[in-house]
């Protein structure tokens, strides 16, 4: 029984180190494949998928490494490697959270700026218009809403849920 628990803890430790890397590689390859197949810049929804895979990998990695750490602490074993796995996932989680939050804010800003159409008239630098020409503001259509605004919102929610789960998993049954 104790031996199987030790084997399980070893497996958890391995997964704690490898799952975030597997998640990262999967997300990057997925992005590359879609980019190569479609020959276009990645749609923001693909970025949402990539960030979801990355975040899931880190949450799972945190879960496994915490389970291995709990076993080490509970059985009086050395905690160096298990602590390292937890810290690795913590650092990766912080970087991921910051990146997703920044991408979300920048995509929201980009979505708003897409609504503006500036006038085509060219004015020389020395000429100052006394009556400025206003830009055209395009309406927020359902297609534009789904393509630009919703993904940015999903990203900020993803960041929030990810941070919540990362902290929950990191502190799950820790002695």
């Amino acid at each position: 029984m104790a031996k199987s628990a030790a084997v399980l803890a070893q497996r958890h430790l391995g997964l704690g180190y490898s799952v975030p890397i597997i998640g990262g590689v999967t997300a990057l390859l997925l992005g590359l494949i879609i980019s190569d197949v479609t020959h276009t810049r990645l749609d923001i929804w693909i970025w949402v998928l990539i960030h979801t895979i990355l975040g899931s990998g880190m949450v799972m990695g945190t879960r496994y490494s915490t389970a291995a750490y709990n076993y080490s602490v509970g059985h009086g074993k050395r905690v160096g490697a298990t602590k390292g796995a937890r810290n690795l996932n913590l650092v990766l989680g912080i970087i991921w959270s910051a990146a997703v939050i920044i991408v979300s804010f920048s995509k929201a800003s980009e979505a708003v700026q897409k609504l503006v159409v500036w006038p085509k008239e060219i004015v020389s630098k020395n000429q100052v218009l006394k009556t400025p020409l206003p830009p055209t503001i395009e309406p927020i259509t359902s297609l534009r809403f789904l393509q630009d605004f919703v993904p940015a919102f999903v990203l900020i929610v993803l960041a929030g849920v990810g941070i919540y789960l990362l902290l929950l998993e990191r502190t799950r049954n820790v002695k």
Partner: protein
Amino acid sequence: MSNGLVQRIGRGRVALALPLLGLVGMWAVFLGAQISDLYLQNGSNYGNWNAQQNEFHLSTYLFLIGVAILGLTSVTARRMARQLTTTALERAVRGFSLVAVFVALIIGAVFGVGNFMSNFMNNPFYPSSSGYVQPDELKRIFNVYIPILLDAAIMVFVIIRAFVNPVDEDEKGHESKERAHG
């Protein structure tokens, strides 16, 4: 904060979720601020800012509301987490809420300084015979001075609520324990 929610999912989890909800709220208000700014961009393409200076900048106040949302949710979480020392999650939430307060204060400081810098030396005076639109001083007070004052007030409020006298009257039973923890 609803006591029912606290009892159902636990004080630690509520304190953890609060700054994250504040972040989402801030994002939504910032989006609204940027949309409202679209209607003030007359002439900015040509470097003529007079038309904008004389408009009321709703976006400034929306950005301020966003900063306030994050600040208030963070400081509420911080106060909730002050007494959480039992489990690892609760100890982690204490640290997380402290980081959230710092982030809110940094964003508030960036907003205040950014508002100052973007309006500093940006109030040109033209002779009345030039034909240019004269700056509206009252609008400038509402667009620049009052938001900076409100931002400072929010930051002071957050600092005091987060770090000065952090124990409420109804929580004094835990005060000695808090002091022992420093």
